[in-house]
């Protein structure tokens, strides 16, 4: 290795540094040349990405058939048409997505492995020291935000609560008696409720249904839970049959799935919370590859066919490009850092 700074240490004397101009010029030119070669080759590389016949793996940290998986599969099938190569969804469920995130961040950053990133699970997994995650935010190279599924509060159609204010009043009058459901101690519903409690100075009885929203809905329809906290994609059937009254949606705009339902903001509670899903590649993936992937995702999200399919599944499509997604991630991370200690 050429070392322009030859430091010779003689016993007992201060090191003498000989700066060799000639040698350093040689080094500099070699560095520049290699840099040029790399740039050209990565551009050429990117022009080849993806190679025909090479499969892109999309890691999904949740079970096949769940709402995260369905959204990912819809994106994957769209990407196949855009990129002209097969995109295969591989489910690696477990540890609330941590197994898949670990696999994603440890995969070769060549663009042939990408993965789904969920909020809050991806952020919680590295913020919570008890989870002992082997990755951090910088391990992810974000590609796109795909779905935002806003949280909501709902009551049964025959419930005495007609508005959000009724719920707040009841909770104030009976601390820790109004039963509200979540899908887990660190689920998006739990964070939403914690924020709401802070905002309104109330305390609910949070009932966690870790097996999923279906168990929560059953308990709710059976009258065992007073308020259902769930996401927009969960109540399509019940809303249609008139069994539920959705009190408010935690988003900045009304949902096309529930016409006539106000947002929390419109009722005086500036609360925005959701479970969202996006995609990322392992950090270190070359920029050209990242651009190719995120470009494909952008085009898929804009296509009419994709939009229709997502709407059929009750998934709220909300595309963000990597820059916007990074900003959104930072904001979300900040909120969670505040709220996480409250879940302990």
């Amino acid at each position, binding site marked *: 290795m050429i070392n322009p700074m030859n430091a010779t240490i003689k016993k007992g004397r201060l090191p003498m540094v000989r700066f060799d101009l000639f040698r350093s010029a040689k080094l500099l030119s070699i560095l520049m040349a290699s840099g040029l070669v790399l740039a050209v080759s990565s551009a050429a590389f990117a022009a080849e990405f993806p190679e025909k016949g090479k499969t892109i793996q999309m890691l999904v940290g949740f*079970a*096949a*058939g*769940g709402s995260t*998986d*369905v959204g990912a*599969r819809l994106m994957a*099938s769209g990407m196949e048409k855009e990129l002209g190569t097969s995109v295969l969804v*591989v*489910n*690696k*469920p*477990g*540890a*609330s997505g*941590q*197994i898949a995130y*670990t696999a994603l961040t440890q995969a070769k950053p060549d663009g042939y492995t990408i993965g789904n990133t969920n909020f809050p699970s991806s952020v919680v997994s590295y913020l919570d020291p*008890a*989870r*002992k995650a082997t990755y951090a935010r910088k391990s992810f190279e974000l590609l796109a935000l795909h779905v935002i599924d806003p949280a909501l509060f709902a009551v049964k159609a025959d419930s005495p609560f007609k508005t959000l204010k009724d719920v707040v009043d009841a909770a104030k009058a009976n601390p*820790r*008696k109004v*039963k509200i459901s979540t899908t*887990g*101690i*660190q689920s998006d519903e739990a964070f939403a409720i914690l924020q709401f409690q802070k905002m309104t100075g109330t305390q609910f*009885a*949070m*009932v*966690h*249904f*870790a*097996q*999923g929203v*279906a*168990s929560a*809905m*059953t*308990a709710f*329809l*059976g*009258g*065992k*839970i007073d308020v259902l906290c769930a996401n927009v994609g969960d109540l*399509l*059937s*019940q809303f*249609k*049959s008139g069994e539920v009254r959705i009190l408010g949606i935690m988003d900045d705009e009304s949902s096309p799935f529930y016409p006539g339902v106000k947002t929390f903001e419109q009722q005086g509670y500036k609360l925005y919370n959701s479970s969202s899903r996006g995609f990322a590649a392992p950090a270190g993936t070359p920029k050209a590859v990242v651009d190719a992937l995120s470009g494909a995702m952008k085009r898929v999200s804009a296509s009419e066919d994709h939009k229709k*399919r997502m709407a*059929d*599944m*009750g998934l709220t499509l909300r595309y963000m490009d990597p820059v916007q997604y990074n900003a959104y991630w930072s904001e979300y991370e900040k909120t969670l850092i505040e709220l996480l200690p409250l*879940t*302990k």
Partner: protein
Amino acid sequence: MEALQNLLMGFTVALAPQNLLFAFLGSVLGTAIGVLPGVGPVAGVAMLIPLTFQMSPTGAIIMLTALFYGTQYGGTITSILLNVPGEAASAITCLDGYAMAKQGRAGVALSIAAIGSFVGGTIATIALVLAAGPLTRMALQFGPVEFFALIVLGLSLLMGLAGKSMVKALMMGIFGLILAMVGMDPVRGLPRFTFGRMEFMDGIGFVPVIMGLFGLAEILVNTEEKLTSVSVAKMSSLVPGKKEIGDSVGPILRGSVIGTLLGLVPGMTGSASSFLSYIAEKKVSKYPDRFGTGMIEGVAGPETANNAHANGALIPLFTLGIPASPTVAVIMGAFMMHGLIPGPFLFKEHADVAWGVIASFYVGNVILLILNLPLIGIWVKILKIPYGLLFAVIVAFMMVGAYSVSNSTFDILVMVLFGIVGYLLRKLDFPLAPIVLTLILGPLMERSLRTALDMSQGDFGIIFESPIAVVLLSLAAVILVAPAFRFFRKKTETLSGEEGA
């Protein structure tokens, strides 16, 4: 009867040639997926969804639902023939089913299992047609508190599983409960007994454990002898005899009821249904001690229950729009992908699809019965394959099956570990059935207690406020205490007998 009229209309849809074809395809695929150990209905249904995009909604859903309850037919086959559970809900069938196979009665076991499966699935569908509303309302009464009480009752039935040694059965039951504690605890969400491994965060993994305890342990026991000399008993007839059919009637009827009712309760798994059926059969039988040695009731009941459960689990989807299990959630997704939202209004808006699908459940079960019965002759031939060859193939399939649960080689190692554990436990003469029971019910118990206490914010009184829960828990208490009474009564009898003599 309006329902029957609608059903007849549904039949005209279900029996249309292309829908029949879809039902057939779904049934075949379902059986195949059920046979393959480890690959479960969720994966099967999920993978088919993209294929069904091109089909009409009715056809697509007919195929997917046929696949779903078809897997319950296939899962039985490897359980009986090879002691390898094809699928979680078929694990219990290994106990008596494999014993029957070793006695040369594999054909009989498979036949009864197929018939029971058919009856179970059909009765659950009849329940859907005739009593969906009331049944669903009843199921909604089961909140976390009642669920907890039900699970405790199920666990108390563990006492009924004790064979020769109560101590050993209890030890195994507790061992299963401890294994069930591995993972993220339901209270704080912190890892417990995970040794730092992420893979344990959701628990040890039922399928790899069961495959190890039963399938691999069996192979290991067989390696003690020269593999070429391991042979199966001579095959007796494939058709069950009159006595066997007579003995099976009760279990099949009871299994149908148990499976249908438990299928309605979200959170109850098919394996819980089939296991509770097994225990019920043991309780009502005149020869409880013979269970595990090849009692046909031990196959008829559970196999019926798991099919009734699968079809019963579809009821809340139609009446409430709620999927009772992850697999049903996938089917719900299939509905939605075709622009249909399942729920009570589906009957108004798309009556032809709704009733067509329901009618197809009957059709599908018939197809599966016709499909599976003749195949028994072929399946049974598997046993004729020389063990020196067969065992390696079983090993390969088990490894792939264990892997495919979560696409992880770690699960294969779990299976190997429990293969060793199962081997040692067998050598030491410990019963394995209690582990399966507590491993299934354990996580459900702690979680439901936690949820119930969330509702009351820590007050145990909530349990006593529910009449259903009180009844169930009292039953459990009686069951737990009864053996002690019997024990003391015997002691006092012998004492007074001695005195009198």
